[in-house]
């Protein structure tokens, strides 16, 4: 086969594989839209259950993301810069929620934070109950979604050429200044995409939530829980929430993509 033919074959493979990938992802999502009408969709939007699920999902996932970023960024930064005893063990620990089935994570959280739990029993004595509250939803989301951000941040900081930071340090910059003016701008694009994945994972959390937070509309019923419940009764509500999730996720991704592209030109 000469070089021309093999290049044409490559193009054919490109078309087929990209076509397959796009249709595999897009067609089921399009099927969502086919199963309802704009009228049904808009009327379901006003159902209290839908509004509640929307608010709870975004509130909890947002708080979870905030906590993960605030704690995870310095953790990832120093983890990648320092050597400390047990570092390898911590690496494994960070990845653990990724391979743990969410239901297991939920059970573990319940056995820890629940009122019979390891920590929960002492909190219960002072009147603090965590299980079955909105806080429990946030805790579950933090647990399952944090690896997405921390691993990502860890890699990004680790790949930074230390020469820039070292130069800044020799010039007398404090660690905070070094981080804020050198490390952060260079990694911000990657960090933001890590945040998007983390937010998405937190938003979609189901198994752990139902175990430790329960399923209560208006308090702990997130969108995935609402979809699962609605699927068993009112199909239209399930489809509405699903479409909402698709549209919102798409919107967020689009905004992020535009914003980071601009920054990418500057970085």
């Amino acid at each position, binding site marked *: 086969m000469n070089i021309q033919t093999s290049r044409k074959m490559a193009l054919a493979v490109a078309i*087929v594989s990209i076509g397959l990938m796009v249709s595999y992802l897009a067609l089921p999502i399009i099927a969502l839209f086919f199963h309802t009408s704009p009228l049904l969709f808009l009327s379901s939007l006003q159902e209290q259950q839908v509004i509640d699920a929307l608010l709870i999902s975004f509130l909890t996932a947002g708080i979870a993301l905030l906590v993960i970023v605030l704690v995870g960024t310095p953790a990832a930064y120093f983890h990648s810069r320092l050597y400390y005893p047990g570092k390898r063990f911590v690496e494994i620990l960070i990845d653990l929620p990724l391979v743990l089935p969410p239901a297991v994570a939920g059970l573990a959280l319940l056995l820890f934070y629940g*009122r019979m739990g390891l920590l929960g029993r002492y909190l219960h004595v002072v009147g603090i109950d965590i299980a079955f509250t909105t806080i429990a939803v946030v805790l579950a989301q933090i647990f399952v979604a944090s690896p997405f951000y921390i691993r990502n941040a860890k890699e990004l900081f680790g790949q930074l050429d230390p020469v820039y930071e070292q130069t800044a340090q020799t010039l007398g910059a404090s660690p905070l200044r070094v981080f804020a003016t050198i490390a952060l701008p260079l990694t911000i694009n990657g960090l933001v995409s890590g945040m998007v994945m983390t937010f998405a994972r937190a938003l979609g959390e189901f198994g752990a939530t139902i175990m430790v937070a329960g399923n*209560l509309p208006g308090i*702990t019923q997130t969108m995935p829980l609402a979809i699962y419940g609605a*699927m*068993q*009764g009112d199909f239209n509500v399930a489809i509405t929430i699903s479409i909402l999730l698709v549209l919102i996720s798409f919107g967020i991704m689009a905004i992020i993509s535009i914003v980071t592209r601009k920054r990418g030109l500057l970085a």
Partner: protein
Amino acid sequence: MTVDKKSVVISALLSIILCIVLVTTGCTNTATTPGATPGTTITTQKTAPPTQASAKTLIVFTAASLKGASDVIGPAYSNATPGTTVKFNLDGTQVLKQQLENGAKADVLISASNTYTNALKNEGYLVNETVKNLTSNYIIVIVPAGNPGHINSLADLGTPGKKIAMGTPDVPVGVNTRQSIAKLTNSTFNTTWNTTLFKNVVSYETQEPGVVTKVVLGEVDAGFVYESSYKAAQPGTLNAIVIPVKDNSLQTYTIGITNTTSDKDAAFKFETFMVSPQGQQILSDFGFRPIGG
């Protein structure tokens, strides 16, 4: 870069050939060579065509409350009918109904709700003549061992500050729970009790074992479950508060063959087993009541 017609045709042909190959390899019977190992006595036995006729797998969609019972029913049926294994798909009946309506294949359905059974019969997913009553169940209130929520009577359920778990409005146990609560509100208590009770609910579970788990773990003060779950629980893990029969809501379970079954005879044999004394005994051992309570 223009796409040359020739390379497009070649890639299309290749993909078609690939598809044909994949489909045909998927369809061929794995023909096992009935070779006698050298040295064994030569018996003229016509080895039957491998596997297909003898080993059967029955898929039984079952209401989740039969979780414990199914662990015994499966082996018992395999003993009674050698060559058949039973695979149970346990979930809330409302979920099973959705699955059947969306194309899932099953041989038998054990449903915890007449309403859902009738809906499926009307929609044509069941072989209507084969649908029979199987067993029944009452609703009961369970509390964890040690009674951390100090719930000693049905009245206490209406005390503010308790944690209660029950089924969603769609799962059969949830439907009957609400019916029982409504009856109790009218006969014994009042609307304040009713309102406070529902304010006390911290979780609506999509299947009955979910409620049981939350109570067993002691994370909720009380839960509305089936009597069978209480009777079959490990001794010492649960205590119960009975709902009087007049206020209770009897759940009638039905069994029926689905219209997606691949072996109607095998499915019917299983159904017969379940309504027979042997099957009924297993259900009774797990706390289910005979048909009619």
